[in-house]
C-alpha cells in the first residue's frame, strides 16, 4: 500500500542542515501494525508527518496505492488526508467548543457530508467503540484517555486505510494508555493499517513490525508473529 523510496526531509536550523529524515525507505502493506521507536530527535514525528501528507519531503519518493504523492497539488493531498489517512496526536487536538459527537463528525463536515448522514455515522461509530456515554459532552469534561479515544474515533470516521498515531499515550497514565492502545489494536484487527510512534517500550513491543530509528534513518526492524502479540499483557 505504501512505498517510501529514499525519502529525505532536511531542515535548515541556524544555517546548519538537519537531516530529520535521511534516505528513508520502507514498504507498508495493508493491515500492518507498525511501531516506531527511537531516541528523541531521531525523526519519528518527521516520518509520521510525511506518511500523513502533512509535510512535503526534500527529496525521494512516496507512493500511496501506487500514486506518487510528492508531485500532487495541495488540494489533492488535502483530499487524501481527509479520506485515506487518520491522524492521532499526543495532544488530542479536540475543539473545545464542539461536543464529542461534533468533533468526531468534523472530517465529514469538512468533506461536505450531509448533516444527518454524518451524525448517524458518528453516533454509530461512537457506540461501536463503546464511547456513546460521551456523545454530548465537551472535551474539557472528559479525562485524557476519554479524549484520546474520541480523537481516535474522529481519525477513523471517514474509514481511512491508514491510521497514524504520534505518541498517543504520551500524556496518559498507564491505565488510560491501555484503553487507548486497546482501541487502536481493535481498529487494526478490523483491517486498518496502523503506525504508532512511541517512547513506551511495552507498547512498541506489541506491534508486528517494530522499527528503530536513529538520526533520521532506519536502524533496525524486528518482526513479531501475530500469535505473540495477542498474548502480551497490556
Amino acid at each position: 500500500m505504501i512505498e517510501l523510496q529514499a525519502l529525505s526531509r532536511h531542515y535548515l536550523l541556524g544555517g546548519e542542515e538537519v537531516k530529520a529524515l535521511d534516505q528513508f525507505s520502507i514498504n507498508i502493506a495493508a493491515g500492518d501494525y507498525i511501531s516506531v521507536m527511537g531516541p528523541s530527535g531521531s525523526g519519528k514525528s518527521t516520518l509520521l508527518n510525511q506518511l500523513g501528507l502533512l509535510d512535503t519531503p526534500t527529496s525521494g519518493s512516496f507512493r500511496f496505492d501506487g500514486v506518487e504523492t510528492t508531485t500532487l497539488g495541495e488540494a489533492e493531498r488535502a483530499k487524501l488526508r481527509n479520506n485515506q489517512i487518520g491522524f492521532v496526536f499526543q495532544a488530542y487536538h479536540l475543539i473545545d467548543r464542539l461536543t464529542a459527537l461534533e468533533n468526531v463528525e468534523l472530517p465529514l463536515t469538512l468533506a461536505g457530508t450531509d448533516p444527518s448522514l454524518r451524525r448517524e455515522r458518528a453516533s454509530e461509530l461512537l457506540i461501536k467503540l463503546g464511547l456513546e456515554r460521551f456523545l454530548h459532552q465537551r472535551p474539557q469534561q472528559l479525562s485524557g484517555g476519554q479524549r484520546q479515544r474520541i480523537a481516535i474515533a474522529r481519525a477513523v470516521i471517514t474509514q481511512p486505510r491508514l491510521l497514524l498515531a504520534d505518541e498517543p499515550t504520551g500524556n496518559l497514565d498507564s491505565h488510560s494508555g491501555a484503553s487507548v492502545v486497546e482501541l487502536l489494536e481493535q481498529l487494526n484487527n478490523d483491517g486498518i493499517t496502523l503506525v504508532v510512534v512511541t517512547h513506551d517500550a511495552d507498547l512498541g513491543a506489541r506491534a508486528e513490525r517494530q522499527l528503530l530509528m536513529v538520526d533520521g534513518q532506519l536502524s533496525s526492524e524486528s518482526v513479531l508473529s501475530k500469535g505473540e502479540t495477542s498474548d502480551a499483557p497490556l
Partner: protein
Amino acid sequence: MRLSDQLAFSLQLFLRQKFRTLMALLAVSIGVMSVLLLTGLSEGARKFVLQEFSLLGKDTLIMLPGRKETQGGLPPLTGESSRDLTLEDAAALNRLAEVEYTVPLIAGLSEAYAGGLNRELIVLGSNERLLELRGLSLQQGRNLPMSSDQTRSPVAIIGAGVAQELFPASSPLGEWIRLGDRRFRITGVLEPSGVSLGTDMSNAVIIPIQASQQLFNSPGLFRLIIKLYSADQLKTVQPAMLNLIASRHAGEPDVTLITQDALLSTFNQILGVLTAAVVGIASISLLVAGVLIMNITLISVTQRTAEIGLLKALGAPQQTVLGLFLLEAGILALIGALLGVILAVILLTLAHLNWPAMPLQIPLWALVSAVSVAIGVALLFAWLPARKASRMDPVDALRGVANAN
C-alpha cells in the same frame, strides 16, 4: 464544507467570544450609523432647500436689476450705475407674446403698528398674482386689487403669524395696520404656510407695489418675476427680453435673468459637495471598523493556530480555511451594518418628529453603499490574516507555531 456548516462554525465562535464579537459589531454599526445619519441629514437639507426653491416653476424667470456676470464677478462699480428696473419695464415685458404675467417685488423691513401693539415686519410690495405664483392661499378675506385698477388703494394682506401677534383676540379683517407713516386696511390673511423662497411668509405683510414704492421711496423694483405660458419658451424668450430692456435702458441690457434650473443646479452643486465631504468624514469610522476587524481576525488566527493545523490535518483545503475566517469577518460586518442601519433609521425618525419640515430619509444609494462598503472593508481587511491562516504549514500550526511560509 457546506455553507450552513461554516455558518454554524462561526456562530459557535461568536458565542465563545461574546466580548470580542460585541466590540466588532459595535464598531461596524457605529461606522455605518454615522455614515447614514450624516447622509440622511445632509440629503434632508439638500431636499429641503431644493423643495423651497423649486416653488419657482420651470416656466418662470426672475429678473434682477444690474448685470451680474455668470462667472461671479463684482457688479459694475464704475461708469453708469445700472438703471432701475421699473413698473414700466414690467408692463413692456408683459406685452411680449410669450409672457403670461409678471409679478414685481419690492421688499423691506418696516415697523408695524396695530391695535396698540407694534413689531418689525417684512413688507413685500407686489401685485395680485403673487399668491398664485407662490402657491399661497388666503385663510380669510380677499386678494390685492387688480393692478390694472389704478386706484392705489391702501390695502394689505398679512401673514398668519402677524395676525396672531397683532390681533390676538379679534379678526384682523377690515382693521387698520400702520407701516411707517402710512395706514393700510387689512383685506386678507394668509394660510399658515412654511417658508417660501427664503421668506417666512407668516411674518410678512403684502401691499400693492405702488404703495411699497412710496413707502420705501424707491421707484426701482427689487426683482421682477416673469411667468411664461410655456416652459418650452424659456430659452428663446431670454434674448428678446434682454433686447427689450436694452432698448428701454439706453442700449444697455443691465439686468440679470435667473431660471429655476440655474438656481437649483447651483444649490445642488454646493450641497452635493457638502454631502460628499460629510460622507467622506463619516467613512473614516468605517475604516476604523475595518482595522478593528482586521485585528480581531488576526487575534483569532493567532489564538486558533493549533485548530487551523488540525483542520488542515483533517483534510480542509486552503480555501476552506480562508473561507472560514472571511466568513467570520463578513458575518460580523453584515450584522454590524444591519444594526447600524436600524440605529440610524430610529435616530432619523426621532429627529424627523422634532423637525417635520426636513425630509429626513436615508437615500437608497447611501444605504446600499454603506452596507456594502462595511462588508467590503471587513473582507478586505480580514483577507490578509485569513490568507495567512490558509497558508500555514500544518505541522507548525499543530505545534502552535503561527508562522506561515
